[in-house]
């Protein structure tokens, strides 16, 4: 996958950062404004997908690989589960141990923002990883000639 035309690349260069920033905002402010971990996670993932679509898979090969995504996926899930297990400290599974704080402020609602971050990381990494897997699969099942080319470039 070589990426798309120059126009697409340039626009992506402009927009991708904003999309990812917006995704992060949606994740972090989920408890105050509409949004939350899942929504923000999907936005983050679509920002990353845009980058990959525009610049080709080679662009992210070193940083955002399939394996990194998998690990981040597990980590995000574990963070959320940790929040849940942390509830045992408050007595019961899933107790919201931190204080609710002032309604409407960023630091409020106890563990909800932390859980949101966990979910955001998880969802974005997971979806992005699945997309990479689809793309990689497609590449591997392209014509035999392309496969041979890919093999060569891998070596």
């Amino acid at each position: 996958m070589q990426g798309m035309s120059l126009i697409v690349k340039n626009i992506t260069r402009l927009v991708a950062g904003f999309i990812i920033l917006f995704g992060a905002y949606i994740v972090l402010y989920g408890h105050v404004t509409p949004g939350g971990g899942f929504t923000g996670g999907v936005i983050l993932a679509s920002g990353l997908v845009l980058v990959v679509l525009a610049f080709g898979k080679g662009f992210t090969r070193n940083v955002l690989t399939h394996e990194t995504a998998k690990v981040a996926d597990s980590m995000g899930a574990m963070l959320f589960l940790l929040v849940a297990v942390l509830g045992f400290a408050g007595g019961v599974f899933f107790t919201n141990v931190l204080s609710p704080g002032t309604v409407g402020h960023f630091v409020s609602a106890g563990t909800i923002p932390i859980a949101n971050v966990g979910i955001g990381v998880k969802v974005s990494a997971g979806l992005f990883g699945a997309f990479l897997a689809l793309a990689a699969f497609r590449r591997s099942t392209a014509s035999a000639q392309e496969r041979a080319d890919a093999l060569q470039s891998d070596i």
Partner: protein
Amino acid sequence: MDPILWILLALLGFMLIASLIAIETQDLLSTVICAGAVGFGTSLVFLLIGAPDLAITQVVFEILVLVVLVREVITRRDETYATSRTTLPVGVVLLALGVMAAVVFTVLAGNGTDGDLRLRPFGQPRMTRQVDAAFLAPAGRPEAAPPGTEPGSVGGAYLKHGLTSDEASRGSGAANYVMGVLLDYRAYDTLGEATVIFVAIIGAYAVLRKVGRSRHAGNEPDR
């Protein structure tokens, strides 16, 4: 008449038409795009009736699904579809679905006479009615409820007690009630949900492995 109801009906009609086009058209790309229209229609419905969280989620979800589906469809030539005929008798399917729809419609149309346990029409959910507080007491323990009246559904209870900080019902403190429900009162659901997406993605990895089976005597892959 309520304008929101009319807009809603128009949107639902639009979604219905789009879905029918998506199902009946011969061109796969049009199918996918019309399915996208249904999804965006859903998002508009959410926005219309006071669910911005859902609207945002539905939009990004739809974008991602559309990107993936369009990619799959335009890169995979499938000329055989136009020549293929359906094998299942369409008439039988339509008849079965029609019977199902007729039954449900009869029930939906005949509401209003069934007392407390009737189907609530659009716009007047159960929680708008104040009921005896015992309604919200645990099953088998009516005495556990405080005196007074409460909204007639659990959702009403979330709204009423979501922020209060007295002993009986500590609120979650989230200004976004939906997030409060999702990640505090019903966080266990959300754990399940996170698991579902984890499972699906691991499953997709598993399905998309290049080689499924290692070689083994007597275990030739078919084809």
